[in-house]
C-alpha cells in the first residue's frame, strides 16, 4: 500500500530508499528528506524527558494532497519512513504500524549479519523483498 519506503541512518543520510515507480524516485527523495525536519523536531521534544518509554511510531509527519508520510524512529535513531497516497483512505493506522514493525524486524535481521557494516547502504535481497512486500500488500 505504501508507495515509498525509506531507511535513514542516525546521521540523517539515506541507507535505503525504494519506491513503486522508479521514475518518481527523486521526488520521493525530496519528500523523505524534508520530512526529516519534522522527525528531528519531534525527537527533540520527546527525547529529553523519557527516552526509554518513547514510542517508535511517530505518526504522520506531514501530508500533502498526494502523499502522506509516516515516521518511525528506533532507539538508535535509525529512521523508517513510509509514504502512502493520501487518496487511499482505507489504510488504517494499525496497518501502518504493522508495516513499520515489519521493516524494523527486517532491519534488525540484516544488522545481525556480521558482514554488514553498520552505516553502509543497505544492499540486501532480504530487505529488498520485505520492503517490496510492504509496498505491494
Amino acid at each position, binding site marked *: 500500500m505504501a508507495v515509498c519506503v525509506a531507511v535513514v541512518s542516525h546521521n540523517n543520510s539515506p541507507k535505503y530508499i525504494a519506491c513503486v515507480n522508479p521514475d518518481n524516485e527523486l521526488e520521493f527523495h525530496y519528500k523523505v528528506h524534508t520530512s526529516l*525536519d519534522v522527525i528531528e523536531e519531534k525527537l527533540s521534544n520527546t527525547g529529553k524527558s523519557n527516552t526509554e518509554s518513547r514510542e517508535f511510531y511517530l505518526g504522520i509527519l*506531514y501530508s500533502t494532497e498526494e502523499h502522506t508520510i509516516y515516521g518511525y524512529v528506533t532507539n538508535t535513531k535509525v529512521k523508517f519512513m513510509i509514504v502512502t497516497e493520501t487518496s487511499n483512505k482505507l489504510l488504517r*493506522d494499525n496497518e501502518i504500524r504493522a508495516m513499520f514493525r515489519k521493516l524494523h524486524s527486517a532491519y534488525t535481521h540484516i544488522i545481525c549479519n556480521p558482514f554488514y557494516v553498520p552505516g553502509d547502504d543497505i544492499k540486501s535481497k532480504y530487505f529488498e523483498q520485505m520492503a517490496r512486500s510492504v509496498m505491494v500488500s
Partner: protein
Amino acid sequence: MRSAVSVILSSSSPDPNMAHPDYSLTVQSHADMLLMIKHLDEDGDEKWFEQVFSHLSSVKKINLLDSAGNERNITARFVKDYPVGNNDWGDFQTHRKLLGLVSVSKCNSQSELNEYCRLHESLKVKYMSTLFDTRCILFGNCKDLSPPSNFKSTALMYDCALDGCKDELTKHMNELLSSVFWILESKLQERSREKGDKIPMLLAPFEKKDFVGLDMDSRTNKKRCMGRMTKHLGDLSLQAGLPQEALAHYNTAVDVLRAITDWLWLGGALEGLSAVSILLLPMQQKVPTTSTSVQRNSSFQEKSPRTLRPVSAIIERTISLTSVSNIDYIPVAEIKRNYRDAIIHYSKYQNAGFIETEACFKAARFALDQKCVLDAHHYLQGVIQINLVLTEEEKIAKKKKNSDSCHKLGFNRKAAFYKRLAATRYVSARNPMTDWAQCYQLMLQSLPGHRLTLDPADFTQDRLSGWPSLQKQVLQDLVVAAKRLGNSGLATRHMTFLLQVMWRHMNPAERVEAANNLRHVTAQCEGAPVPLVLEDGQVIPAANLLNIPQAENFTVQNLEPHLRPKKLVIAKEDYGPFLFTPLHFGSMDRKQGKFKQTKLDYVWVCGDPCCVTLELSNPLPSPLEVSNILLLTQGVYESIPVSVVLPPESTGQVIKLMGVPKEVGDLQIMGYSTHTLGVKSNCQLSQLTRFPHPPHYSIEVIPALPLISVTTSLDPSATCSLYAGESVTCYVRITNTSEVPITILQLSIDSLIETQDLISWDNADLEKLLPIAPMSSVQMPLHLYGAANFLAVNNDSCSLRSCFFSGPSSLPSFSTPQPVSTSSVSYRSGASSLLSDFSQRHHSDKSCSELHLVVKYSGGESSLKGYCRLASIPLKIDVLPSIMITNCDVLPGEVSSQFYLVLDVVNVTPHEVELRYTEGKSILIEETGSCRVPIPVARCPFSASLLEVEQHVLSQVILHWSIGARTGKASFSGLPFNIDKLDLVKLSPVSWELTVNGSPIESGSEVTGTVGDCLSFDVKLRNCLSHTLSDLTLVLSLFQDHLNGVVDHQMDSKATAVGTTQASISTVEENEAVGHAVGFLFFYPGLYKLSVQCIPKSEPDHTWKLVPPLEIHVT
C-alpha cells in the same frame, strides 16, 4: 518582506480587483491603523525618500486620553503603496482600510507643485472610501508658492533639509495620528449606536453578488447583519485601543455568526478573537515556559485523533472555557484552536485565499513565538494547499516566505526545498522574465539545507553526510545555473566540486557524464585552483579533481644508488635488548605513528636529480590526457612537468616525477598538480585517501656532493684468473666528474667471503692523491694476490699419518734417512691414490670471488655534515689452484740441529710446474703429477711454544712455483704437529758428549772395536736449558738393527756391560754436565748400535735421545 510587497505592487498591470497577500502582517497589524506614505515623484531620489519614510514611520505609537479620560494606546502601520484590492477588504477587516495618506516629494517650482497637488488629489480619490485624513509634505524651495485652488488637503512645506525639520515633522505626524484616531473613534461611536433594525449589511468584496435577490429582512439576515457589525465593532475597538471591548465584541460575534453558519465572517471573528487574545496575553505567556510542550502536543494530536489527548490538556481546556469571562486573556491552546478554526472557515471560500494565507502566516508566527514548532509547521503546510491566483513573482515571493518561515522553525531541509522551488520558478518556462542570477543566488542559499558547502575541505571522504542523491541534483542544478548565468568559470568550479565531493556516490555512468560535462564547460573557461570571488563578495573555494585521475600510490624515492649520500661514520643503532620481539607495545600508537611519519630517513642532494613515483589510474572508459603533472613542494624545487595519456580504465600507471632541489634545507612535498579535462588541480596528499600516507612528506636536502667515476685497468667484464699464490698489480682510475673537489677518499672491499689476502693497497698512497680537483682524475695501484689454502686437508687426520708413515715408535728404525737425501728422487708411490683423493676436493676449492671495490668519497659542505657517497666497482677474481700439499711429516735431520719437513706436493694445474722448495733446489712436476719433497728446517729452541714452533717452521718453508712466466709462492699455515713430532722439531734440551776410550766422537761417526776388548764409553749429559734439570734417568742400551724391520734388543749373549747401563741423576745445573761411564765387552763381531737416552722421571713419555744412535763396528 517589504521589498517583496513592493515588487508585487510595482508590477506592470495589477488587477485592481485582485487582493494580494502581505506576508509581513502580524497579529499586531490587527490593532494598527493603516497609513500610507507615498513618494509622489516615483522616479525621484529613492534614498532620500527612504530617510523620510523611516523618520515619518518612526511615529507609530501615540497615547491619548479619550473623552472618558481613559488612556488609549494607538498604533499605526505605514506602507509605501497599497493595492486597492486589499483596501476593498476594509469592511471585512478594518485594519485593511487605508485611513491616512501622507504624500512626500521634493518641489522647487510652481508647475511641480501643481503636478504634485494633482497627484495627491488623485490618490485621495483612489482611496476615497476609506481615507480619514491626508497630508502633503513638500520639501524644497516652495515656501512662497501657493497650491492650486482646488487643493483641499493640508500641505506642509519645508525649505530645508530633512534633518532641519525632524522635530516639526514628528509633531505633525502625531497630530495626523490623533486626527485619524478621533475620526476612527467617532466612527466607532457612530456604529455602536446604530439601532438593531437599521444595521447595514457589511460585505466582503466577492460577496456582493451572492446576496442579490435574497430576502434582506429575514431573521437570519438580520442576525447576519448584527453579527457582522459586532465583528466590525470588534475590529474598530481593537484599532481604537480598546482591546477588552474588542474581545467582548468578538466573542459575541463568534456566537452569533456560528449560529447562522456565516463561515467567512465567523473565520474573521475567530481570527480577530485570536489576535486580540494574543495581544492581551500577559508577558509571561507570550514567552512560553516549559509547560508549552504539553499544549503543543495537545493541539497537534487533535489533528491526528487516533492518539489520546493528554488529560492535562483537557483539563486546561475546560478551565479556559469556564474562565474566559473572568480572566482577561485566553490561554494559548485556545488561541491556536481559534486560529485553526478560522483558517478552516476561510478555506471554504476560494476568494478568501489571500486572507487565509495571511492568517496562516500569522498563526505560524505566533506558534513559533510560543515555540510550538510542529504547530507552526502545520500552519505553514496549510499555505501550500491554498490555491491563489498569483503572478510568477508573487509565487516566488510566497516560496521565499515559506522558506524563511521554515528556516525560522529550524526546518532547514524544508527551507532549502522551498528556496530551490523559488529558484526554479525564476527560470521556469512560464516565467516571462527569467532571471538566472536570482536563480543562482537562491540555489547557493539552498546549499546549507542539503548539508552542502562549497568548500571541499568540509567533506571528509570517510564520513557520510547528507543526502547524496539530492546533493548531486542540487550541485548539477547549480552548474546549469552558473552556466546560464554566463559565468563559465563558476560553472567549471561547481562541476569540479561535484566531481570531487560526490565521486563516491556516483555510478560509473554518472561519472562519465559528469566528466563529459566538465570537458564541455571547461572548453569555455579553464579551471584553476584559486578561490573565485563573486560580485557580492562571496568566495567560492578552490576544488580539485582528485579522482580523475586517481592516485593509487605516491612514493618519494631515494636517490639512485650511486648518487645516494651515506653517513661517513655510521652510528651504531640501538636495537634495545631484543633483536626481535613479537610483542607490540602500544600497537595502536605505533600504527598511527607510522602513518603520520612525515620526515623521510633519506636525503636528497641539492642540484642532483631526484624522483617521486606516482601511480595513477584512469576511472573513465575513455583515454585520459593528463598534462603538466608537477610536484607541489614548499621549498625551492625545479619540477619537470610530465604529460601522459592514461588508457581507458587502467590502473597503476606509474609516473616518475623528476625534479631537482635547488635549496639546502627541509623540502616539504605536499602533493602533485595535474591538468586534465581542462581543469588545473592541486592534489594535496592530505586529501588523498586511497592509500595510507602522511599529510605531507618532509625530506632533507643537503649541499652538493662530488661525483666520481671509477675504472680499473682490468677488463671489467672478464674474470681475473690467478693461480694460487700469484701476485698481480692493477690500477684504479678515479675521475671527479662534478664541480666539487674531493677531500675524503676511502677504499674498502665489499664481499661475502673473506678477502683480506686477496686484495690490498696502500692507504698512504691514497692520502697523497687528495684533494681531487673537479674534472680531474687520479690513479692508484691495487695489489691482487691469489690467496688459497695449499693444504689439502684429509677428512681423517689419522689417515694422513698412516698413509705411509709407520708411526713415531718406528722412527728410529729408519736406518738411513734416505728420503731426505739431497737427490731429487721423487716418490711416486701412492701418487695415483693421492690424486684421486685430491681430485674430489679439487672443484670445491676452486674459488671464484666476486667482490666490490667500494670507494667512499666526499667533499664540499656536505662532508662537514658527515655525508659521503659510495662508488663501487665489481671485481671478479678467480683463484685457480696451482700446487697442493696433500701430506706432510717430519723426519729427523742429518744433523741434530735440523729436521726434515717432508711434503707431498701435487701439481693440480694442467701445466708443468717447476717447484723451488729450498735454496738452490728445485723439482719439475708434470701436469697432475705429485712428488715428495724434503725441506731441511732448523730445529727450533726447546722452550718455544707450539705457536712459536709453527711460525718458526712456516717462516722457513716457502715453496716457489713457476708455470712458464708466471710465478708464485705457496705458503701455508697450520701444520698438523703433534707431540711426537715436537721432539724432532724442537732442539733437544740436553746435548751429548761421548768419548770412547778417552777419544771424543762426532755424532754420526762410527766406532770400531774388537771382540773381547772393552770399549769404555764416557757419556756426558749437558743441560742446554736455562734452568736446572732434575730427577733424570740416563739409560744406555745396546741393540742390533737387522735393517729388515727387526730390532734385536736381546744382547745378553752377544755383549755385556761393564758397569751400570742406567744411572740416576738427581740434578743438572744449567750449562753443567753430568758424566757417566760404562764399558761394553763384545763377544761376537758385528754391527751394534748404542742408544743413549735420558728420561725425566716426572715425564716418562719424553725421552731425549742421542740422534742418531752410535754405531759400533765390532770386528
